[in-house]
């Protein structure tokens, strides 16, 4: 390496520059791959670390607890994921779940059958979701934040009014056992989560509708120009998110044997956090159902771990908040790396 001071032959200089750009390209590509797999790696590391820190962590009973406690977040987060996929946000899921559970409990006390109670809860959730979607799209609201913030307040208010501010105990035995009992060694709610996840996976990955959701989330104006029914796609995501909140109401009501207007407070935070922590993009168009599930389980694991280590519930809020910021920053970093990658590809050719 003696020739560094001498003027370089332009051709050699170009070769060197392109070699540097090439190695940077490889580095950027590796970083992008790691960011893509980040959530599952962190979850794996977390579980590994916890199994050393606490002897109870890996016990079947504790794992079963985590799954049962996380089931509601899992189901609702999958709905939230579709909304976030299309660049939206659904703040009303927690209140929606509370209202659905109260309506379910009231209908049970009015003598409705198990099937009717379930239908009431799921339909109530779907109805609130439909209101969100229709007002957002056809009310031409600038951002879904506004309408879902309004229904967050309205649904909670209706639930408190209907239930007179108190929990209404009593659920049909079938719903109770779904929320409390184990089947084949797994909490019943796990099967509901798996069923919803399967349906959502097929919808988002295999159907035309699912592809349209990704397109709308990627770029709305292009979706319009490609003839995709953008309004209907947007409304459907809020409808599905509400439906998931209704299903979450069935699970939570079953677990607690009650309907309560106080259910689901801060559930919007948990589900949005789950989607983001899991690795879906807050900027829309990126991510899949698995991300929502991984994120939800990660939140469950973190909570459980902090409980096992006797860390107070106040700290848990702080930890979850910090994790959200880290996850969103990772998303920002990924976008930055991707544009860097594009520049490098332009400079050095394909």
């Amino acid at each position, binding site marked *: 390496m003696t020739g560094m001071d001498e003027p370089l032959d332009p051709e050699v200089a170009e070769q060197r520059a392109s070699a540097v750009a090439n190695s940077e390209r490889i580095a950027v590509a590796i970083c992008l791959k790691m960011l893509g797999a980040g959530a599952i790696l962190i979850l794996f590391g977390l579980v590994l670390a916890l199994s050393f820190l606490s002897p109870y962590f890996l016990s079947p009973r504790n794992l079963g607890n985590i799954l049962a406690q996380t089931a509601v977040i899992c189901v609702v987060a999958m709905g939230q994921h579709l909304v976030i996929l299309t660049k939206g946000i659904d703040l009303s899921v927690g209140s929606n779940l509370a209202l659905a559970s109260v309506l379910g409990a009231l209908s049970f006390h009015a003598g409705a059958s198990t099937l009717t109670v379930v239908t009431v809860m799921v339909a109530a959730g779907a109805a609130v979701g439909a209101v969100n979607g229709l007002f957002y799209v056809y009310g031409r609201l600038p951002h879904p934040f506004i309408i879902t913030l309004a229904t967050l307040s309205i649904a909670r208010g209706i639930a408190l009014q209907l239930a007179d501010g108190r929990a209404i105990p009593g659920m049909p035995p079938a719903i109770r056992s779904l929320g409390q009992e184990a089947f084949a060694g797994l909490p019943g709610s796990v099967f509901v989560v798996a069923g919803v996840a399967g349906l959502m996976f097929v919808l988002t990955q295999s159907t035309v509708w699912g592809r349209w959701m*990704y397109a709308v989330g990627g770029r709305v104006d*292009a979706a319009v120009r490609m003839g995709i029914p953008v309004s209907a796609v947007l409304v459907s995501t809020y409808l599905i998110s509400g439906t998931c909140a209704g299903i979450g109401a069935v699970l939570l009501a079953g677990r607690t044997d009650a309907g309560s207007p106080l259910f689901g407070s801060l559930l919007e935070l948990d589900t949005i956090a789950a989607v983001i922590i899991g690795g879906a993009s807050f900027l*829309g168009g990126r991510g899949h159902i698995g991300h929502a599930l991984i994120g939800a389980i990660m939140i469950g694991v973190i909570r459980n771990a902090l409980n096992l280590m006797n860390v107070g519930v106040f700290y848990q809020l702080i930890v979850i908040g910090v994790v959200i910021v880290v996850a969103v920053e990772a998303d920002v970093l990924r976008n930055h790396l991707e544009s860097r990658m*594009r520049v490098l590809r332009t400079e050095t050719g394909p």
Partner: protein
Amino acid sequence: MTQHQLAAHPQHPVLSVRGACKRFGSVVALDDVSIDVDRGEILALLGDNGAGKSTLIKCISGVHRLDAGEVVIDGAANVLRSPADARSAGIETVYQDLALFDNLTPAQNFFAGREIAGPKWLPRAMRFLNKRRMDEQTRSLIQSLNVSLPHLNAVVALMSGGQRQAIAVARSAVFARKVVILDEPTAALGLRESRKVLDLIGALRDRGNAIILITHNMEHVTELAGRAVVLRQGRKVGELVPTHGNKQELVSMIVGA
């Protein structure tokens, strides 16, 4: 799906715009503009900024509706209410902003809004994507257009400017049956990448499409276009066959000097 239409009405220009007028409030964007394009022809649409080029192509591609005048496709007057209308009439547009979905792969971009899916008895939106056929068609199209896309499974966000432009142009080739409109397809590209896109436009023409090309690059106009139409302040001010000899004449028509 294209063969029988190729043979229909050979006597008509495939696209003709007659007496197009469009105003936005008090601004007259288009004032009695008429153009014709034939199959296998590249028509350059020239003009300074604000001359009405973009308005004209937006009217042809269904984004705007004409206040007066008509768009005649294969001899039949069409009312284009939406971009979807224009697409189903066989008109494809490559927008200046490309209108690509950064989060989707090239194949997914090609078929966005027109996915190959089945079974037929399901409502269209609920059908299952036939990903393999869409990938196959994408691959064979990319081969036949001689586009180099080494990362077919990567999302478009990761691709270079030239590759993205090529994808947008190739997408129009998937479905174009009559007319392809290109709005400044090389404006953001370097020399080498421009070259590739120009070759691609030539390939689109050779497949029998009528091409409307908006560009500011006179070299490209003289090289590719069979005819050039010049707009100024919403009016058509000239139409000629561009050659190296009359480049200066074209430029003065554009600037109105």
